[in-house]
């Protein structure tokens, strides 16, 4: 097994790091949030587009005054976007960043990612 040669000077076996439990945990933390959220917002939006295009009469049902179901569904997309963004920021700060920081600092301490040359 040859170790991957990092172009910035340190020999680190990335495959060994990749197989470690703490890295697998970091990857799982990211994907278990990002993948389901992506599926959710895509479905929410595509349902909106398909309903609006093919069942327009559904959107014209009035709810509050002249504000109909279409306007509310449209605005719900804004709520979804702002909501997922807020949760993601909280999630990454609380769950992702400490884990990625630990691995990054460990690798940097081993000499990975340091500038290869002194800037002129």
């Amino acid at each position, binding site marked *: 097994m040859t170790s991957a040669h990092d172009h910035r000077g340190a020999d680190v076996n990335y495959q060994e790091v990749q197989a470690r439990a703490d890295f697998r945990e970091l990857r799982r933390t990211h994907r278990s949030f990002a993948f389901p959220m992506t599926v959710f917002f895509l479905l929410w939006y*595509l349902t909106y*587009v398909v309903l*609006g295009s093919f069942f327009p009469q559904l959107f014209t049902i009035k709810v509050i005054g*002249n*504000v109909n179901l279409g306007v509310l569904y*449209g605005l719900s997309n804004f709520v*979804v*976007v702002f909501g997922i963004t807020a949760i993601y920021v909280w999630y990454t700060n609380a769950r992702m960043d400490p884990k990625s920081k630990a691995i990054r600092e460990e*690798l940097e301490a081993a000499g990975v990612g340091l500038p290869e040359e002194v800037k002129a």
Partner: protein
Amino acid sequence: MSTWTISTRSAAGELPVASAEATLSTDVGSPWVNLGIFALFVVVTLYFVIRASRTTKTSADFYAGGRGFSGTQNGTAIAGDYLSAASFLGVIGAVAVYGYDGFLYAVGFLVAWLLALLLVAELMRNTGKFTMADVLSFRLRQRPVRIAAAITTLAVCVFYLLPQMAGAGGLVALLIGVDSWAGQALVIAVVGALMIVYVFIGGMKGTTFVQIIKATLLILGSAVMTIWVLALFGFNFSGLLGDAATNHPDGEAILGPGLQYGADAFTRLDFVSLGFALVLGTAALPHVLIRFYTVPTAKDARKSVVVAIALIGAFYLFTLVLGYGAAALLDHETILAAPGGQNAAAPLLAYELGGTLLLGVISAVAFATILAVVAGLTITASASFAHDVYGQVIKKGQLDEKGEMRAGKITVVVVGILAILGGIGAQGQNVAFLVALAFAIAASANLPTILYSLFWKRFTTRGALWSMYGGLISALVLIAFSPVVWGRPTSFFPEGSLDLYPLTNPGLVSIPLAFFLGWLGSVTSKVAEDPAKQAEMEIRSLTGVGAEKAVDH
């Protein structure tokens, strides 16, 4: 189709256009006020661009602004890059004329940002240097993948750039009463020349300042107008909708979908295809991706997207109010008869509210919008050609910092001149569809490869090439045999009947096809990719170890 009608030719007939132009340029606003405010914008931005040039010494300065912008600055610049004239004039106009369908169109532009936030921005920042191709070729075979990524990048930039440039001519007809071909051509040349100066002198730093100033003006301007409109209706949105319906010849129909996209099953499917392309294309637009390299860390890239989402979201909420406001306060026929047709709704509304001065501000903002967007596209095209094609492929990475920057500056001038010529040539042609095509190409040629190379271990060079070329070529072939080109009054060949593909947007077919080809190419590859490189990329993307650092001056 969506986006904005540029040609005066495609507006409702020649005669009424000519007479309305006379009315607008004599009665509505003062061309000198409009020009004066725009000139002020140019002077202020030029100051920042020249200041930025003093600290632009390396290629990291020129292409990535030294990676020294804060997340908030970059997020504002992203909003400035993204909110094109199609968003500002186009969406407000579409809501004013077609009602709900304009809103339906606008929603996709915002939702798309979640993809950038969740899957793309931070990981791309951690693994790239200047361009999308840096990431895509990270663990695959450099040369072929980089060339393919540069080709798709240039294709998206050109298709996005042309309608912006041609649009500058149409905007002038609307705002300063210049309606001759030569006059509009001159304006396109002036906009192009200004853009070349900005990017040549200021590089990515200069471009970023232009975009920040433009985004601030655009969002503040529309916020003021939105509050003004709402105040006129006693902050009763339902009342605003009611008045819009009463004032519009289609009445209550404008409160529901269908007026623009609802003609038949094909136009409906066409809209679904457009929505698909918008929501999947945004996170793969090269001029958006390149902005993630202007911040020091992945955390700042995240902050950039959060700020961009807040600004872009607020902006599209404003367009909903402004569009229905225009429908309620303006005469429907006046909008349609104005030069530029529905694109005139926003400027006319500004004049109705705040007279000559507000019209002047909004006109200048519209100009600034085009200028900032073309500057962003030009630096992206320049980075892609100079860094990817010239630096990495032709010179095989042996180009030094100075050489790479020189190549970039030469490319800026060449791209700028081509954009001016292309814009003048495209003037009066129906090129609005190109913006939607650019999104469709980004979603088919770029997105699958971005996602596969970040998340799928067994992705290979063959998969990347099949997906990128397959996505690009299928999108182009479908559009070549679509009603955009054949058999409709607005087509290039109205008499022809080669419209074998019934939709005007290729996304519905080309995006799934490109994902499929990426998978098929990978599983049929006989050569496996280097697992160590894949491990390195995955670790770097998630931890930021070894990521490009900010330039220290």
